[in-house]
């Protein structure tokens, strides 16, 4: 499967010139992985952002407060591991291949080089990182509120 052609089919990249999409495709590494392959582990720093080209990936997030497990399944065309593009930022979920999968990886250092050669795509990915960070921060602060609720409950029951 040709990565550039695949990228051109995705709404997120259809507004960019073929030259920019070609640069992005050149920076990404396509690989085929068996079911069970772990791409990203919750709490660990990831090394790359991934684009699922074929197969399925399961996203599993364990809530810090109540250990509730949230599961989602990604299909072809979806991105994951966006926060791997910035340093010192542990992943908020674990991503594992649910079936044999074809995945394109954009390593962090390649993301930085995108700004020199295909800046509009670099900025677009940065926007997606910003949105992901904002949502993660909101989720984190919700967990802090749950902790406060638990404290209030514990004090009332004491």
């Amino acid at each position: 499967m040709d990565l550039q052609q695949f990228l051109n089919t995705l709404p997120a990249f259809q507004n960019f010139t073929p030259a920019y999409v070609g640069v992005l495709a050149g920076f990404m590494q396509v690989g085929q992985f068996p079911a069970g392959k772990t791409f990203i582990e919750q709490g660990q720093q990831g090394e790359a952002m991934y684009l699922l080209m074929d197969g399925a990936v399961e996203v599993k997030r364990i809530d810090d407060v109540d250990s509730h497990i949230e599961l989602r399944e990604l299909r072809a065309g979806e991105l994951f591991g966006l926060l791997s593009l910035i340093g010192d930022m542990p992943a908020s979920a674990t991503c594992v291949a649910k079936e044999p999968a074809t995945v394109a990886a954009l390593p962090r250092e390649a993301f930085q080089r995108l700004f020199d050669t295909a800046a509009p795509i670099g900025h677009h990915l940065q926007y997606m990182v910003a949105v992901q960070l904002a949502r993660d921060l909101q989720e984190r602060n919700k967990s802090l509120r749950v902790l406060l609720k638990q404290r209030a409950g514990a004090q009332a029951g004491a």
Partner: protein
Amino acid sequence: MTARPELIEEFKRRFPGLAGQLGARNVEVLVGATTALELPAGRKVIRDRMPVDSLYIVLDGELIISVEENKKAIRLGHVGPGQLLGEVSVLSGELLASSTVESKTPVKLLRLRHEKFGELIATNYDVANALLKELVGMLADRLRISAKSFSEHAASDAAHHTDAPGEAPANPGQNWLKSFFDRVPGT
């Protein structure tokens, strides 16, 4: 609207990196889109889980960020000159605050209404990119601080842990930035 020269100079002094990326013309555009605000100590600028209609650019003074529940609060940290506030609500699309921000000292802020922010980034690629880079750095720092605070509080509460229901998932809602990236010129 024309920006007051003294506010432009103060912005450049407090945000040297961002001002450098924006360039003189766009600093004027950005500051001109804001309203200056001076508040005494003890004023809640943003209230946890209440609607937020603006981004705030901190020029002077100190503010405290905290998360509230049942009249109790966990303090997450301080914000001072050279930082932005209110960015989570606009980026997440929820338009609700994720924390409370209260002035600890008298503060001087530039208020940029979300509508103005949306308008600016939809029409000015350079401003959008410079602001976005600044926002990613700040959000990452705040997420690290929030995660650290959570770990510390969770560890201290571990012995008294009780189950509690989670809250409803976030509603993606409207997102001003998306409209900008949907119409990037020349791409």
